[in-house]
């Protein structure tokens, strides 16, 4: 968004309180949604839970195309639509709820750096696994991505998306990576996150921030999604403090609030 448009949206956002009927849109949970989109959606849900803001999750087959930026999830609050975790955090901040207020400048820089690490390595690895690994593409991704559409649209859309993602991978230098190299990168990323977390309950000690929401979204989805093989989740399972971290957030923010277990 341009600078003027952003300022405009913040002004409007600041005037109204958070409504009761805010909704979050994502793709169909059972048959359509993919690993990376599920991770993003869960991260936003965790963030909003941490801010104590009520949100209703609605599943729509065309959520990706409804979104203003083409990516899920997006939230519909009042008469505004905001997509992706970064802009949603800004939007919620304009409404007066902020999780990272208590951090000093150096910690804020660290938080942004770690969020970029997760986006750079974990998210890209998830996209690689979904769209560039032939086994996963054939067995899972194509079928799931095209499931709401009739033949031949389901194949066309799936191939189009795959071509787009492969182009992006080549541009950032991941086009020539093998699956083993990608898994090694995931391991490095998890090791860095585990070392940063240490024995603390959250990344910045007592209070969760958007970084915790983002890490939880990705790790929980990796741990609970069934893929063609278990190598990705095995990489995460090597780090016990990350497992405890996921369990803690799941218990505290999802089970105790009466939302029931996350499926």
């Amino acid at each position, binding site marked *: 968004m341009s600078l003027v448009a952003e300022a405009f949206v913040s002004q409007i956002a600041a005037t109204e309180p958070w409504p009761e009927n805010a909704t979050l849109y994502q793709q169909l949970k059972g048959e359509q949604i993919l690993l990376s989109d599920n991770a993003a959606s869960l991260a936003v849900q965790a963030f909003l839970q941490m801010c104590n803001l009520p949100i209703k999750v609605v599943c729509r087959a065309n959520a990706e195309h409804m979104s203003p*930026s*083409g990516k899920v999830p997006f939230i519909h609050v009042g008469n505004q639509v905001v997509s992706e975790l970064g802009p949603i955090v800004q939007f919620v901040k304009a409404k007066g709820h902020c999780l990272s207020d208590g951090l000093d400048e150096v910690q804020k820089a660290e938080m942004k*750096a770690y969020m970029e690490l997760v986006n*750079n390595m974990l998210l890209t690895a998830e996209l690689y696994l979904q769209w560039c690994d032939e086994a996963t593409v054939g067995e899972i991704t194509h079928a799931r991505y095209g499931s709401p559409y009739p033949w031949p649209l389901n194949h066309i859309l799936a191939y189009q998306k795959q071509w787009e993602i492969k182009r992006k991978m080549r*541009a950032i230098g991941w086009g020539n990576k093998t699956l083993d190299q990608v898994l090694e990168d995931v391991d*490095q990323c998890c090791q860095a996150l585990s070392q940063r977390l240490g024995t603390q309950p959250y990344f910045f000690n007592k209070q969760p921030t958007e970084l915790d929401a983002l890490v939880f979204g990705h790790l929980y989805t990796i741990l609970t999604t069934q893929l063609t093989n278990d190598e990705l989740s095995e990489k995460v399972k090597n780090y016990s403090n990350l497992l405890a971290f996921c369990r803690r957030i799941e218990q505290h923010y999802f089970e105790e609030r009466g939302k029931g277990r996350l499926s």
Partner: protein
Amino acid sequence: MAAALELSCWGGGWGLPSVHSESLVVMAYAKFSGAPLKVSVIDNTWRGSRGDVPILTTDDNIVSQPAKILNFLRKQKYNADYELSAKQGADTLAYIALLEEKLLPAVLHTFWVESDNYFTVTKPWFASRIPFPLSLILPGRMSRGALNRILLTRGGPPLYHIQEVEAQIYRDAKECLNLLSNRLGTSHFFFGDTPSTLDAYVFGFLAPLYKVRFPKVQLQVHLKQLSNLCRFCDDILNSYFRLSLGAFSGVNRNQWQIDFGEVLP
């Protein structure tokens, strides 16, 4: 163990040992870790492939890409990070990701996409180091590759015009520079008093932006306002690269004069 390590990379100018960010990262890391690298600068007689530069060649290995080269040097026991704690090692990875996501698009744009900069500075410089007829093709290809990368990673909706993408990437880059400046504070290096991998990466990305004279300089102006980052670059240049710069200007005196000749208005 004393295998001859030879690094092929783009040469220098404007006071820098190399104007190519990735080459500079590897050179800086080698200086910090004490690796005895023999640097061979690409000029227009070099016959090898230029796509993968920088390239490290030993007796039986060829390694490309800065991350892999640094890993290789670490395995050969040239490690600049042995004094870092586990958390600082994790921070290194995170800040490198920040640099690549937020700063790199704007640096690529300043060097390769912004037309004034590209046609008056970047293209002549690179073309003078590539033999004809490749000098007509390669710079254009590198420029298109940079634009492609920027558009594919940052150019999706709701940014529909190239000007909006440019505005966004420069904003992100300025924020990233501010974050780096906050993190560096008043220390000499990012983790205490000895330089490490992160210092090599930050130096590699910032030094060309700081020193190369461009017509269109918005990011450079912003960087020059952050005096601790400028001091950081100058310190590293003075401490680690001063002696070898003397060697450079001795060998490539003609090139040096050509560079300065182009730069002065």
